[in-house]
């Protein structure tokens, strides 16, 4: 990881946290949709990030958001879960290490299909952990499941929008 990517990831870390707690957490769409866009940070970490750093970064990220929402441990648990699955998801959906162009996962480098698989699986893992821990009741299973699906779709939409805006195809 070069110092340049380190710097960009650092900025992204703080930007996404503030975007999440100051803007997205105040958005209310029908009571079922809560986008958790800050996990975009974990999606965008470079491929060669050491695995331990992946977990520590995810934990710090989740913890920081937790501080603002007063749900100590909730976001952290969901983020760590997501970061844990990231290496497995990458190796499962890629045909080999040589197929991974560039140093960070992105729509431009890996193509739409790869990126969709990658982000959908990880976003659903995060949201599933998050909402079921938050409710922690099986009597509301269906309602919680609907929340997981709708919120995941909304988060995915935000991720795709920023992919197209920030990293347009063909420089």
């Amino acid at each position: 990881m070069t110092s340049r990517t380190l710097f960009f990831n650092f900025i992204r870390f703080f930007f996404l946290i503030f975007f999440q707690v100051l803007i997205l957490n105040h958005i209310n769409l029908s009571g079922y949709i809560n986008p958790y866009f800050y996990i975009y940070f974990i999606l965008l970490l470079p491929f060669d990030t050491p695995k331990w750093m992946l977990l520590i970064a995810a934990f710090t990220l989740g913890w920081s958001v937790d501080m603002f929402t007063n749900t100590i441990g909730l976001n952290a648990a969901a983020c760590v879960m997501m970061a844990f699955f990231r290496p497995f998801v990458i190796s499962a959906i890629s045909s080999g290490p040589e197929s991974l162009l560039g140093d960070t996962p992105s729509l431009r480098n890996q193509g739409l299909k790869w990126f969709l698989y990658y982000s959908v699986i990880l976003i659903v893992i995060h949201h599933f952990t998050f909402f079921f821990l938050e409710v922690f009741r099986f009597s509301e299973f269906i309602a919680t499941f609907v929340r997981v699906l709708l919120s995941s779709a909304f988060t995915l939409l935000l991720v795709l929008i920023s992919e197209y805006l920030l990293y347009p195809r063909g420089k």
Partner: protein
Amino acid sequence: MRNLFLFFREHYFYFLFLLLETFSLILFFNYNEFQGSSLYSVSNAVSGSVNSIFNGISEYFSLRKTNRVLIEEMAKLHSRIPEAFYISDVNVFYKKDSIVNLEYKYISAKVISNSTNKRNNFLMINKGSIHGIENHMGVIIGNKIVGQVVSVSAHFSWIMSMLNKDSRISGKFKKNNQLVNVEWNGGTYRKGQVKEIPKHIVMVKGDTIITSGNSDIFPEGLMIGTISGYKNAQDENFNNGEIVFSTDFNSLGYIEVVVDMMRKEKEALKASFKTE
């Protein structure tokens, strides 16, 4: 020993994952004990100050509405001052003795963070223990309920909104004083659920539910909401209903914290029986 060490090194990723995940879950599930720790007050102070900066900006956008609310409130108060009354009798009975005591006191505070879109919603207000706020105090807006204080730092308080899975408010029908419980099952923030309505009660849409005053948190007679629908359960002893909250949880600006001046006495009374 060397093999053990190598084993750990080989699988450190799994161990680190288990460590961090367990740590987060322990904190999450032992949240209540954790609230007292020093780490918590540091994080509360950080998020509190960021929230008040952001709120300082967003406050400007709602000035017009705040003005309107204040004017309405002023009109209401004007109508209560002695000059507003027509006094028909000169024999005014004036009573000043120990029978009349102040039971409730109100502390006004500003909401600096609020949510309605989660399953468990909380508010933060800009007053804390130095202003006299303590845990388990009720929070109201006008004559409508908001929630209860669950955590206090020096300058801020954290309030569990009515919109929370742990929130359960004791209410009653205004028309016949029958006790019920009011909860929130998630979904839209405008509607909640009324539980444990005795079968023989005849309900109609629009029945008013007010606080019962049984819980030591809210005084009696505050508005909770009105019944908007109900279901007659066949196989249970109680009916359930749906309630439209009187409070608009999404537009809370200034709220009041209810201080029950006689709470210590009530609690001491309860405790004295338990120790028998």
